[in-house]
């Protein structure tokens, strides 16, 4: 029987783009909660590909359309790279240095906390809180990040700390 030719000289020379990677970093898909394994191929400190992890007993190398688009999610031109600031009544975004923006936020947190501090209720029982600030977090944040959010904001006296997990 004559075997059909499935390659050419040109295709023989092709190599997978992941072949030249400097390292493969194990990761997890950031979309839904199935938790599929991902492998991140890095070359010259840039991500060159993201594949499913065949070792994962959860996903066995598979990724769905969203998971397969992770490469574009993390390397795409849609990502904003600078801190942007809209001043009160402003009509445009302005750039702001990161450190300055962090300082400005810290100042505003302090002010909101001082202005809306509630020490006791009418019965004289402790409240020790501020209702002047609130937080809403997404559910693709890391546990360690949520931990610092809860730890710092709660200690500042914030109680309106919420998450997609209720939605």
């Amino acid at each position, binding site marked *: 029987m004559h075997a059909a030719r499935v390659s050419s000289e040109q295709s023989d020379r092709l190599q997978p783009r992941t072949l030249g990677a400097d390292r493969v*970093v*194990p990761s*997890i898909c950031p*979309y*839904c*909660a*199935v*938790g599929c394994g991902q492998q991140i191929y890095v070359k010259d400190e840039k991500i060159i590909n*993201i594949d499913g992890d065949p*070792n*994962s*007993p*959860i*996903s066995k190398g*598979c*990724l769905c*359309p*969203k998971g397969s688009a992770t490469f*574009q*999610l*993390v390397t*795409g031109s*849609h990502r*904003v790279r*600078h801190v942007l*600031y809209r001043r*009160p009544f402003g*009509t445009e*975004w302005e750039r702001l240095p990161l450190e300055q*923006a962090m*300082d400005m*936020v810290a100042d505003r*947190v302090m002010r909101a906390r001082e*202005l809306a501090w509630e020490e006791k*209720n009418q019965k004289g*029982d402790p*409240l020790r809180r501020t209702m*002047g*600030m*609130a*937080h*809403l*977090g997404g*559910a*693709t944040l*890391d*546990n*360690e*990040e*949520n*931990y*610092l*959010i809860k*730890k*710092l904001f709660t*200690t500042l006296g914030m109680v309106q700390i*919420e*998450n997609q*997990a209720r*939605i």
Partner: protein
Amino acid sequence: MAECHPVGFQWVMNAKRRGATIIHVDPRFTRTSAVADLHVPIRAGSDIAFLGGLIRYVLENDCYFREYVLSYTNASAIVSDEFRDTEDLDGLFSGWETENGRYNIESWQYKDAEKGRAADSREMFTGEAFSERSTQHAAKHFDSTLQDPKCVFQILKRHFQRYTPEMVEEISGIPPETFEKVAKAICNNSGRERTTAFCYSVGWTQHSVGVQYIRTAAILQLLLGNIGRPGGGIMALRGHASIQGSTDIPTLYDLLPGYLPMPKASHNTSFQEYCEKNSATAGWWTEFPKYAVSLLKAWYGDASYEGNGWGYDYLPHLTGDHSHMTTVADMAGDATGIKGYFVMGENPTVGSMNGALQRKGLRNLEWLVVRDLAMIETAEFWRKAPEIESGDIKTQDIATEVFFFPAAAHTEKDGTFTNTQRLLQWHHKAVEPPGDCRSELHFMYHLGQRLKARYAESTDPKDRGIQSLTWAYPTSGPNDDPSAEAVLREINGYEVRGGKVIPRFTELKADGSTACGCWIYCGSYADGINQTARRKPGDQQTWVAPEWGWAWPANRRILYNRASADPDGRPWSERKKYVWWDEEKHEWTGEDVPDFPKDRPPSYRPPEGAKGTDTIAGDHAFMLNGDGKGVLYAPNGLKDGPLPTHYEPQESPVQNALYGQQCNPSRIEWDRKANPYHKAWQDKRFPYALTTYRITEHHTAGGMSRWLAWLSELQPEMFCEISPELAREKGIENGGWATISTARGEIESRVLVTERLRPLRMKGRVIHQIGLPYHWGSEGLVRGDSANELIAFVGDPNVSIQESKALTCNIEPGRRTRSRLLAGRAPGFEGAWRDLPEARNKPQREET
């Protein structure tokens, strides 16, 4: 599941190849239906009627797993003589207080049970059910024949006696023959030899009776003996990478890490009182003080000692429901005290209900911080929004200061996600983030550093907490990134002296010698090794795969797995063997980490006066509950009834066929001009049922998908799905435009005329359902109106979740008007269409 969790669905297909029957219950025909053995179209909002019908079938036909039910559930417990069922009171349970709009639950208790220590503080809060653990008391009287009319089993039987197949058809639109196929399949696939699993998503939770939906499934699964056994259970298919983690280490108002409640004003004034009210009198939650002290030690270090209640006074106190709906409603009010709002990795103007009200809230703020990968609608609310487009609001009139911080992606930071089966998996940083992009860990750590510096010299007592806060995480790299591993180590816990890592939560102490940021995660860093980063290939270990990642608690993969063995500790069957008692070794053993004290024999019975975990008998498979039993009937912990009851959604095309009480009487409403409701049923202006959902190619509010060309190309435009019958009736064309409206607003979309959505025939009436994916917004590569502009603020009373899966709407052919209908604009909406009984729960802050 094939649509929204495609890779997880491969296991369902594997099961099918091995002979399992796959049943798909969903208003729309999806990729899941296409490969299921049976698709059951259902009217959105009617699942309790359907599941209640199944419970009735199981009870009437004696299909329940009698030995399991007798040993592991509260079926035989005798309930108070005062209790009256919804059958007796036309849809209300006993204890309804019309003037307060809530239940007094005293009559729901077990007969002769003593009053719980925290019984007085329960009613003021929504929050996690069962949070006031000291209210739980074991039953005093039992009838193991299950014949006593006051026993749970008989109450259950009466409660669901009218949920007949005919009633299921009338309410849910499921024909009796289809219903019977489902009922037979689950009964034939449950028992000693076989198990049945239920999987659900937000289609079950985003309802004004959301918690009771899950309770109905839990009752059914307990009756069939399907909890704690391989192939059984109720699986929440959650939609975000670490949404489970966001509950475990909660950024939720009512919880501290590890499901410890937040302090409640006037009810938890001191640490001692806090512990007393939240510790159970029996079962595992007697350990509560150990976890609370260890948490406070982790947060406040040396400033946490016995003399100051371990630093308890640094924590703020709750005075009611501070959930996001309440917060946003407050923000959108005229007298809001909320100055600032942090939104991190979330897009509420698209993903949360009533977009117009969400944006009104944002306009009232002094400042808003948004952190995300792309420029999402929530950050752009001041210049790109329907009310700006229509000219109702002008950008230059909005005072809110907005900060947009670009976020680092998961590939640019270390950390753990907790997936939907409680599995923590570490993702390693692959590259540095570009430009000013930073992780939330970086943002929070450096914000904390700044605030600690600003408060360092303060002598104000209210600043002592922030001064004492332990915040010494090592940093590294070009951006001074804090070490996520150091944070995980603190979450895991360590000995205060010497810093040795604690291997398991049973070694935590209440004497201040241990620190632990989240007790259920204790062990994730055991032996100083990051257990969550374990990646032993699946094919090199057992089918349970215990060496891939780490599952809480204690790396246990199936919760309540003591129930996989019979009361004597033997597997129910060889086929479903999982965890069992090894008499020779005198210990529990098996495929998984046993969910039970390892050396406690099945025959153990607590001695008189036993305390703490000694109260857990050898057959208490549900040892977190004080009586060790699975809860068929819940005397405590729920605000809307000890048993699930079919109530119609806030807005329904039909009247409640079972009771005079139309909706969940305890639901939370925000009845105001900017959040108008329709008539409760048959509102002629809004005759169609509406449901919302996801599609495979996009992700929730779109922040991670609408900016990606690959995904946008696959699903380029917002659309609605309607049946050919409705299309004909309304003159709407496939591929054309339609305008969908509610009292909150109107949106336009392309139309997909499809048999995937079928009209339901309910007792001669035809109900049309309209389906809307909710991913789109005004920004991104592919744009469209947001479905959630249509949805009202309505909440489940137990957990304050929004009702967005079942409401009513109108649809007309053609595009919307240029100045679209905005909430509250049309006169006469407010209150004018209400015909509900005066039985509703209005959220208000308790007296402070």
